[in-house]
């Protein structure tokens, strides 16, 4: 094609510039801003001067495009790096938050021993509006190995211990079963309660003896 290019550069001298389009038209041709059907395109076949100018504009345009593409490419790489670092930072924060949450869960998954002494507490059967005098009944929101000393005169046997939002025991948060045994004149029962899902606040701790199905409840606070 170089030979043909030389042909058009040399073989059609038009020093008087007869019928030549304006410079801006040649520039627009070179920059592909004019349609294929523009008559100036065919003029280049009969005017070496215009063809030379066209080639000059074309070369400069192609060079500037190349430079622009290079700049855009570098900007894209830089933007990608910024985006990647941003995503990386966000991902790091997210993983860190997840890790913290996991640590929190792991911490709350570690069973905690707790004791509740109801020996001297007054007891009321479910449905009573009164509250029992109970001190230090405060449990953490985790898995609790709870050792309950049942009220005076309680009998041994199988018990269910449950934590509920209401006195009726219809909104149970956790429950556990254990066999109550007498020891040194006091009857105690050991159960495991999973209180991890419980929000901190006021609850009721209830004991239910299988034999008579009687429920006794006591105010409780979960921290």
């Amino acid at each position, binding site marked *: 094609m170089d030979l043909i290019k030389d042909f058009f550069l040399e073989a059609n001298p038009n020093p008087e510039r007869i019928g030549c389009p304006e410079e801006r038209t040649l520039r627009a041709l070179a920059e592909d801003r004019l*349609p*294929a059907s523009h008559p100036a395109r065919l003029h280049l*076949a009969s005017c070496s001067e215009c063809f030379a100018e066209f080639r000059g504009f074309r070369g400069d345009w192609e060079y500037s495009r190349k430079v622009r593409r290079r700049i855009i490419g570098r900007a894209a790489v830089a933007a990608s790096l910024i985006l990647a670092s941003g995503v990386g930072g966000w991902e790091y924060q997210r993983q860190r938050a997840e890790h913290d949450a996991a640590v929190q869960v792991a911490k709350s998954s570690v069973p905690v021993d707790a004791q509740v002494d109801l020996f001297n507490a007054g007891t009321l059967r479910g449905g009573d509006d009164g509250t029992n005098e109970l001190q230090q009944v405060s449990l953490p929101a985790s898995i609790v190995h709870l050792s309950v000393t049942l009220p005076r005169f309680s009998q041994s046997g199988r018990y269910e211990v449950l934590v509920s939002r209401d006195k009726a025991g219809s909104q149970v948060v956790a429950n556990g079963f254990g066999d109550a045994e007498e020891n040194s004149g006091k009857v105690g029962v050991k159960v495991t309660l999973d209180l991890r899902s419980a929000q901190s606040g006021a609850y009721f701790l209830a004991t239910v003896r299988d034999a008579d199905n009687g429920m006794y409840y006591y105010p409780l606070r979960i921290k």
Partner: protein
Amino acid sequence: MGTMGQTLLHLVDQRGQTLPATIRVAVEAAHRWVRREYPHLDDAVVAEWAEDVGRAMGAHPDDIRSPHRYAFAALHGKVREWFRRNASKEISVGIGSELERWVDIDLSAPRVMHQVVLFDQLKTKLSERDRHILVLLLQDQTSPASVAAALGLSYAAAAKAIQRVKERIAAILMGEPIAEPDQMSPHLCESES
């Protein structure tokens, strides 16, 4: 001062004053074009031509209606003149590196003759429409659709016309009695200096 690659142009008028920006821009554009179009020409020689053109333009800036056109025409003229002058030049050289330095110039004579004959053939054997198609191809309007739009042809006719132009060009080149200069062994006429 203008730049093209590593070549700096010292664009001043005859009194050593910096040329107007329009002239500088025009000369630099023409210089870049010659560097691209004729890469085998000596950079320093082309730069000297460009500076000469700039100096000449600086002598009568008000008479130049289009600095860009003037610069292109003037510099292109210098290139043509150089090819013409060197095509007929006989040089007496020694052997070795000095000889090799002149090889390109010695080869330019058959190259120019070859081009003259070939260009004559292209002019006579190619129709105006063929030349239009060729110049469209050189503008990167290579699809039959573009050629069809430019020449007012149907797509099929444009596709066929492009194919025929290529065949004609090939026939002209194949039938060319003068071999390509690059394929010739340089039988240099040498005389001891």
